[in-house]
């Protein structure tokens, strides 16, 4: 995890695209303006330091979420709370905070950088993209909220306060999600609408929890004072723990499925790397066709295990190329594989995808699911080109598949496959 190869570094640099550059630009402009505007005169330095430390703590406890995402719910809670805190108990009296917008931005930026330092020291990624998105979102909330409050001081009734703050955290969350979705659509070469709905589906629970916690913190600051702020991280610690375990078991699960997929390779049933290559191709095609993330996960599992049925053969098929065996055998292999997967009890959709991978596109008694059609096409292409990046060979293979689109392959899938194959080598798929 620690050392990155030159190639990876090169790829990382390659991935700095226009969307990212713009985001970095906005974020650094915010940092510069915020620091310049705050440095001459810091209001309530002790409160600023307390919130800054809270944000740093949250950034330290970053969370990796399923799908290679990253979140910092505690940092967001602290930053939103600082943006919206109007009254703070201080030495037995209530302070009315008129924190300037620029100071909110500066404190957030400094806190985040402090919290990110240990990550960088440990050789992990700095996570600049996600941090920039968070900073922009906090800046927006601070700007809107402080403008409203200046025009119209918060009402005396807590219900009105609550409503205003709820709208604010929802706004902040939406902005962060939008930015992440744009970046992700770029990274994965997926459609923006799809990544946005994925992002909303994955993040809303965490967003809700951290937004609520921000509101709780604002209310609590009126009563408890600044030193006791840490208490409000309590509920989030529980959530953090739960999500961490969830993310880690999901990663482990994927590793186990990969191991299961490798079994056929070690057993000499299929070419080395076949399952992984088919999976990469299938995922890229799935994205190209705009499949949502949940379906992509099923597709990934199914593609990894699509050849598992061969285990029940006594003798391996020569070269493991299932595209070359008679249909009846291929069917039997797919059924046996689906049976192995079905025994895991929880992957019924995946088993179905594997079972249907040999159904012809037309002429069967039912149309196979999209995932199966994709696996079928990706498998056929890899069986024909065996991981080679030779353009001519790929073109020839695609031509052969196209010739069969009338009955065997889904033409739409084959076209998407052609687009994806055009981006070979596979490393950047």
């Amino acid at each position, binding site marked *: 995890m620690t050392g990155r190869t030159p190639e990876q570094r090169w790829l990382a640099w390659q991935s700095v695209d226009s969307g990212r550059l713009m985001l970095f630009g906005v974020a650094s402009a915010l940092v510069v303006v915020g620091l310049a505007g705050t440095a001459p005169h810091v209001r309530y330095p002790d409160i600023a330091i307390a919130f800054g430390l809270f944000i740093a703590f949250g950034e330290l406890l970053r969370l990796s979420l399923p799908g290679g995402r990253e979140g910092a719910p505690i940092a967001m809670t602290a930053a939103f709370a600082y943006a919206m805190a109007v009254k703070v108990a201080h030495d*037995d009296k209530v302070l009315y905070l008129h924190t300037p917008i620029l100071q909110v931005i500066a404190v957030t930026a400094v806190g985040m950088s402090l919290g990110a330092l240990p990550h960088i020291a440990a050789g992990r990624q700095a996570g600049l993209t996600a941090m920039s998105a968070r900073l922009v979102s906090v800046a927006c909330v601070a700007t809107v909220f402080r403008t409203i409050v200046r025009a119209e001081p918060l009402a005396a009734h807590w219900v009105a306060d609550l409503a205003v703050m709820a709208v604010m955290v929802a706004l902040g969350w939406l902005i962060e999600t939008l930015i992440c979705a744009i970046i992700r659509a770029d990274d994965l070469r997926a459609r923006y609408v799809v990544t946005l709905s994925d992002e909303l589906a994955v993040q809303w629970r965490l967003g809700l929890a951290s937004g*609520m916690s921000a509101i709780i913190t604002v209310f609590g600051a009126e*009563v408890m004072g600044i030193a006791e702020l840490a208490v409000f991280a309590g509920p*989030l610690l529980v959530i953090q*723990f739960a999500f961490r375990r969830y993310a880690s078991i999901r990663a482990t699960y994927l590793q*186990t499925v990969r191991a299961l997929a490798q079994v056929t390779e070690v057993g000499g049933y299929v070419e080395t790397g076949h399952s992984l290559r088919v999976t990469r191709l299938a995922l890229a095609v799935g994205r190209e066709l705009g499949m949502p993330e949940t379906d992509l996960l099923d597709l990934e599992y199914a593609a990894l295990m699509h050849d598992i049925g061969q285990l029940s053969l006594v003798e391996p098929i020569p070269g493991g190329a299932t595209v070359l065996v008679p249909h009846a055998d291929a069917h039997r292999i797919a059924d046996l594989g689906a049976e192995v997967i079905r025994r895991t009890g929880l992957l019924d959709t995946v088993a179905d995808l594997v079972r249907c991978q040999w159904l012809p596109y037309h002429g069967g008694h039912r149309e196979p699911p999209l995932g199966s059609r994709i696996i079928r096409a990706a498998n056929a292409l890899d069986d024909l080109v065996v991981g080679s990046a030779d353009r001519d060979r790929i073109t020839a293979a695609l031509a052969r598949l196209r010739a069969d689109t009338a009955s065997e392959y889904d033409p739409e899938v084959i076209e998407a496959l052609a687009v994806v194959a055009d981006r070979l080598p596979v490393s950047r798929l």
Partner: protein
Amino acid sequence: MESDADRLDGVTLSGVNDRHKVGEENMGRLSWITWLYIAAIVAAAAAILSLAPTGSRSLDFWVTYAVLALLFLICESTPTALARQSSWSPSSAATLAAVVLIGSTGAAMVGAVAVLSVRRRVPAAERLFNGAMYAVAGYAAGLTYATLGGRPMMATSHLLGALSGTAFHLHVSGMFAGMLEPFAAAAVVHVLVNHGLLWAMLMLDRHGRAAAQRTTPGSSLPGLLACDLGFAALGLVIAALWPVIGPFAAAIVLVPLFVARWAMGQFAEQQRAHQATLAALCQAVETKDYYTRGHSERVSRGAGMIARQIGMRSDRAEAVRFAGMLHDVGKLGVPTRVLQKDGPLTEEEFAAIQLHPMRGLEIVREIGFLNEALTGIMHHHERMDGRGYPMGFAADEIPEFARIIAVADAFDSMTSTRAYRKAVRIADAVAELRKGAGSQFDPKIVDAFIGALDREGWHMQEPARPRGDEIFTSQDHDDPTSPLRVVEVV
């Protein structure tokens, strides 16, 4: 499929054990001393509740009590995997909020509500015990809080004030100064009393004891402690927000709780799927030979027995069970015709079989959590005298995991029926193990295994009933009673 599901259930490799279940399964056969213990706790709780001064309660007290009791009930009635795993439940937040808002008796009364938990299939005795336990824990926490100088917030007008919207924080602010320490102490006491009482209950009950040993918080302990801290903090958050937003404080903390519950539910589901997938990996190995069905699982169980007997740390014990489960996964890399060959093997074929631990390693190396289990998979055919394979390690060079699996593997191989012979009796298999101790097996591990056998017994595999279309092996690589025959090179 039915039997498959049962089997998977039996392979509970990690500790999502439900401590409440201990009571569910065994309430019918509790010993008299356990009943006495329950009676004592219930009596203590009854005394606490009846000593409470009545009559002088204000309306505020009762409204606050009702809201907190409802919160407690919601938390108790919707157990999460997290809460079930070790009875740490978010309900402690309600009790601890009660400690601050309505005093120690109030906290005891909130805890007693556990009797009414709407969870199904909880026997009456267990309900009663839970209610009494939480009442005692709440009271103890309340006493600690008061003793250390924590001020009760039983103000009369908070509730009505919050509802009417008048800002109270002016005289409320600063009220919390100096109450953090007493509250922290109260939270610690609550956890200690709660766990102490529950632990004693489990220790008194023989079945409970076995279940408690199976439960392995292990590596997640720091995380669970963080959770405890978080739940306690929730109690303080409720108490702090009460003067500002009234009973709504209880509602607002439910949101994070339910998000956490969702994540824990997902975790539990993924974990089940993961275990099922590991089982599928093993079954894939076993399709190659009908007679080795269930072998991986039994070796896994045997390895777990040895680990418990030698007092291994719970997370390592779990890892050794995984290693036992996956130890023969490399057989997938050995051509089927070699595994099923009738008659002596050629040098090459024997070499292919000797390669299977390495193949196994190759397959599962990428699975991150296995770590030490990998050494067990790779070296389970090493011998103490150094004549094993693949590395020819001797004595202490062999990793502990591998020595454990070697014993469990050989024992199960002997005591299960094979196509070419009937199962060996347990006594004979034990004698065989003793004979091999020192040369093939680690004597300490053999002793531990025999001790565990005496204590826990061994489930013999019922003879496999072939379906008729299998090809049978005539020898087996891990069977010490009939070693593989290799063609002599002339």
